[in-house]
């Protein structure tokens, strides 16, 4: 959290209420006097501004300015003041005003204001340091406000993500149920898909940044195939950052391809390899190529599997299409996609689903 941004919403103002004699000019001059300290440029000094501006003010009020009207305005203002705010009030009183009297008058709102009492005759150094502290305190309040807003946004986002993740789990469950022959088959299919979904969930959660690289996604899903001494899946190509929803889609694509390869293709043998290459040429669609080598040879499928249909639907969802090439030495699957869609967060707000 940085310092205050000088915009109209948050620009601070020192409001001076000192109607007696030349008090106003004296106070303004003392506050502007930079022998002891310099008032930040972003802070304005105004004489008797209306209470409309108090939500961003520090109030400096003399004995004579501390009128019935001022007190009523202050009570009215503090009633509507948000819980994170506490308006700073610097009172400049005659030396004979008793603290008890003042305390009684302000009793009801003391916890809603930041009160400092100075006595006449004023010492410029006392005044400027007091104003400085009041400004710092007010700035801090706005920082807290921004932090609260940020936390709320995160919470909404998280809530939203959980809903969408559960919706995806429901979808996986129903899809797997529909395409399973029996309970052990369902267990295997649903388990693998849920695993793929979970692996990107972890990656995204452990990251402040809401994007992950395509490489990380592939590595996370394909980790079970690379447990030995030699990696069986080899990644190459351009770097690509991916936002949450497409990350989920890519993870499930890798899972379907890997599951297929472990049953019929190159991941069914120790010697088999999968080469995954991502290319993003300027001005052309990006391509993701899954190329199997060293496996048992190619068996074109007899019917269109769920995996194939899912990859087709996914590629369409990512603004492209897919081609399956069943030729020796192994399956090659080429997915074209719109790199912009991989990276874009379309979830509204910061990144809502």
């Amino acid at each position, binding site marked *: 959290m940085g310092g205050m941004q000088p915009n109209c919403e948050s620009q601070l103002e020192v409001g001076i209420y000192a109607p007696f004699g030349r008090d106003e000019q004296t106070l303004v001059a003392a506050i502007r006097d930079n022998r002891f300290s310099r008032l930040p440029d972003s802070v304005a000094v105004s004489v008797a501004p209306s209470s409309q501006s108090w939500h961003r003010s520090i109030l400096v009020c003399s004995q004579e300015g501390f009128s019935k009207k001022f007190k009523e305005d202050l009570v009215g203002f503090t009633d509507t003041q948000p819980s994170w705010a506490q308006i700073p009030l610097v009172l400049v009183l005659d030396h004979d005003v008793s603290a008890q009297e003042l305390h009684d008058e302000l009793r009801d709102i003391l916890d809603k204001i930041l009160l400092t009492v100075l006595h006449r005759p004023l010492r410029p150094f006392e005044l400027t340091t007091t104003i400085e502290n009041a400004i710092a305190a007010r700035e801090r309040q706005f920082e807290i406000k921004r932090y609260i807003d940020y936390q709320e946004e995160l919470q909404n986002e998280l809530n*939203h993500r959980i*809903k*969408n*993740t*559960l*919706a*995806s*789990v*429901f*979808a*996986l*469950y*129903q*899809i797997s149920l*529909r395409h399973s022959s029996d309970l052990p088959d369902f267990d295997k299919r649903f388990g693998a898909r849920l695993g793929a979904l979970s692996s990107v969930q972890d990656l995204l959660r452990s990251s402040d940044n809401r994007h992950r690289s395509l490489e990380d996604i592939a590595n996370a899903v394909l980790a079970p195939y690379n447990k030995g001494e030699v990696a069986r899946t080899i990644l190459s190509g351009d770097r690509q950052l991916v936002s949450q*929803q497409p990350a*989920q*889609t890519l993870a*499930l694509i890798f899972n379907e391809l890997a599951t297929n390869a472990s049953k019929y293709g190159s991941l069914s043998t120790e010697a088999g390899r999968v080469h995954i290459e991502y290319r993003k040429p300027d001005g052309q669609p990006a391509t993701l190529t899954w190329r199997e080598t060293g496996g048992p040879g190619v068996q074109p499928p007899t019917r269109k599997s769920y995996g194939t*249909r*899912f990859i087709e*639907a*996914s590629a*369409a*969802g*990512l603004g492209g299409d897919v081609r399956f090439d069943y030729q020796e030495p192994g399956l090659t699957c080429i997915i074209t996609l719109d790199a912009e*869609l991989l990276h*874009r967060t*379309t*979830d*509204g707000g910061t990144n*809502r*689903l």
Partner: protein
Amino acid sequence: MQVLLVEDNVLLAVALQAELEVAGYGVIGPAHSAAQARALANEHDFEVAVIDIDLQDGRTGGTLAKELSHDHSCAVVFATGQTHLAREWCDYAVGVLKKPFNPKTVVRTVEGASEFLSGKTPAWPYQFEKF
């Protein structure tokens, strides 16, 4: 009966399409953006549109619902976790199916929407909020 499906979560779109097709509905789409949905809507007839609020081209589901309910004589149902946003467009939709839901639920919801079109009072699934 034809259903226009507009959902940008590919996985969910695949599941919803499968459920609707198994139940005997024809699925137009799935469209992933309001722009895709508009193009499909101009080429096909459909009685019910199932629309998410957040789509690939932004928070466009609400405007899409307004256009579709105006230009095509169809019943719109929202399918989203953003229930509060869906309610803002309640004049243009029958109600909202609240995520997360079992994809099967969409079948009962679409049946309900089509019954509603013909003046009946459907029994909605419990995740469905009628506007």
